[in-house]
């Protein structure tokens, strides 16, 4: 007699019957935003790269290798780990897109390397990533949470922290170079990655909130405590990682402000309040401008600036507007 485990056949996915309209909204957003590194003319950055000191080159390669590791984790472990927890089939489909785009991101850094660096430099940086205690510590903290059998909502917390917080000690550097008109094509590519990660953090955070609202008060408190204690743990690691990378060019304090700002946004994606007060979270305006060019914060109320600017011509769907 043999035991048979019945094979479960999933229902064919029907995108014309949605349980959660957010799934389709995010699917559309992600698929429209699809890109590949070949679309960015990275080789235009070769002259700029030639002006970098050896130390600046080493720092940049290390930062990108650290980002590669995080994208590798999201591609191979993070997004797939969320799939069995999906409430809707459409959510599972969105997660396959997220997993694949993480592979594209990880692959992009290798495109940057092959454009700018020697094989020796690349191999050294990957060895550095394997051995760096801070980078390894943040990877382990996240992977422990992703482990099979762990609470699905805790996995989502870890995933949002990776997408919306842990990347930013790395993303800072290409934004900094870009603000000084260096490696501007590389920065264009990084901005495409940042845009994707923003959708990922938003969507996974949204799914977290849907699960969180089902819990009783005690359950909610436990998860919230978990989220804040994981944030503190990761923040400690990020501080060490930041100091090790950025002390040499004197940018550590500026990067830490950027960490605070992004930690707050990660918590907001989960529906929680900010942790760091405004006075330690006001990011260098040059970095903000590198993130979103031509979109300074409007403050018509305060009377700063002579008058408001009427938006320049933008893509409006005129068929929807009657006037």
């Amino acid at each position: 007699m043999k035991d048979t485990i019945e094979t479960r056949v999933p229902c064919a996915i029907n995108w014309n019957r949605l349980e959660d309209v957010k799934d389709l909204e995010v699917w559309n957003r992600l698929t429209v935003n699809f890109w590949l590194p070949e679309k960015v003319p990275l080789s235009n950055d070769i002259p700029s790269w030639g002006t970098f000191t050896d130390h600046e080159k080493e720092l940049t390669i290390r930062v990108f290798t650290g980002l590669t590791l995080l994208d590798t984790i999201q591609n191979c472990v993070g997004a797939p780990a969320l799939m069995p927890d999906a409430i809707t089939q459409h959510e599972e489909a969105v997660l396959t897109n997220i997993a694949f785009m993480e592979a594209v991101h990880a692959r992009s850094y290798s495109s940057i390397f092959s454009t700018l660096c020697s094989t020796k430099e690349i191999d050294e940086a990957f060895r550095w990533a394997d051995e760096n205690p801070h980078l390894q510590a943040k990877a382990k903290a996240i992977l422990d949470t992703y482990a099979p059998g762990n609470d699905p909502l805790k996995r989502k917390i870890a995933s949002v922290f990776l997408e919306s917080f842990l990347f930013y000690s790395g993303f800072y550097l290409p934004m900094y170079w870009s603000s000084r008109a260096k490696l501007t094509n590389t920065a264009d590519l990084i901005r495409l990655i940042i845009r994707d990660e923003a959708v990922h953090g938003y969507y996974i955070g949204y799914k977290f909130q849907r699960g969180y609202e089902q819990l009783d008060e005690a359950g909610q408190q436990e998860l919230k405590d978990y989220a804040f204690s994981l944030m503190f743990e990761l923040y400690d690691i990020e501080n060490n990682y930041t100091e090790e990378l950025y002390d040499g060019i004197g940018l550590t304090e500026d990067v830490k402000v950027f960490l605070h700002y992004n930690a707050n946004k990660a918590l907001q994606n989960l529906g929680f309040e900010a942790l760091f007060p405004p006075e330690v979270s006001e990011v260098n305006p040059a970095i903000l401008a590198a993130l979103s060019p031509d979109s300074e914060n409007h403050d018509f109320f305060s009377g700063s600036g002579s008058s408001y600017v009427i938006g320049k011509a933008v893509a409006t769907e005129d068929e929807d507007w009657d006037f």
Partner: protein
Amino acid sequence: MSASIPALIYFSSKSGNTERFVARLAWPAARFSIDSDAPMPKPDGPFVLICPTYADGEGRGAVPKPVIRFLNNPTNRAQIIGVIGTGNRNFGETYALAGRIIADKCKVPLLYTFELAGTETDIARVRAGLKKLGRQLCSTAA
């Protein structure tokens, strides 16, 4: 809604960022229903609109459809006095794009922009700004 001048009308999807901002702002406000068949807010005086951005990489789809339908009504449109745009700087050039589009379409000022659910600084500035607008409206009416 007429108790506080100007009135506030806002859109917030189920991710709830704008809703959390408005709750902390402690200013009476009417929310667009997420259900597209539900009745629209009915302004009975000057109002400020807070609108998040849902654009793709090309800027399409920035303004939620219910907000467009609401502004297509000339009676509603006649009463809007300003817009606050929200979004995420990580979306680059499309950050707070919905606010810019509405300001442009309705010929009203883009009063302010903020990210996600806003910071304490954003709350304080918007609250002070709305009070200032309210005083201006009252003095013009008198």
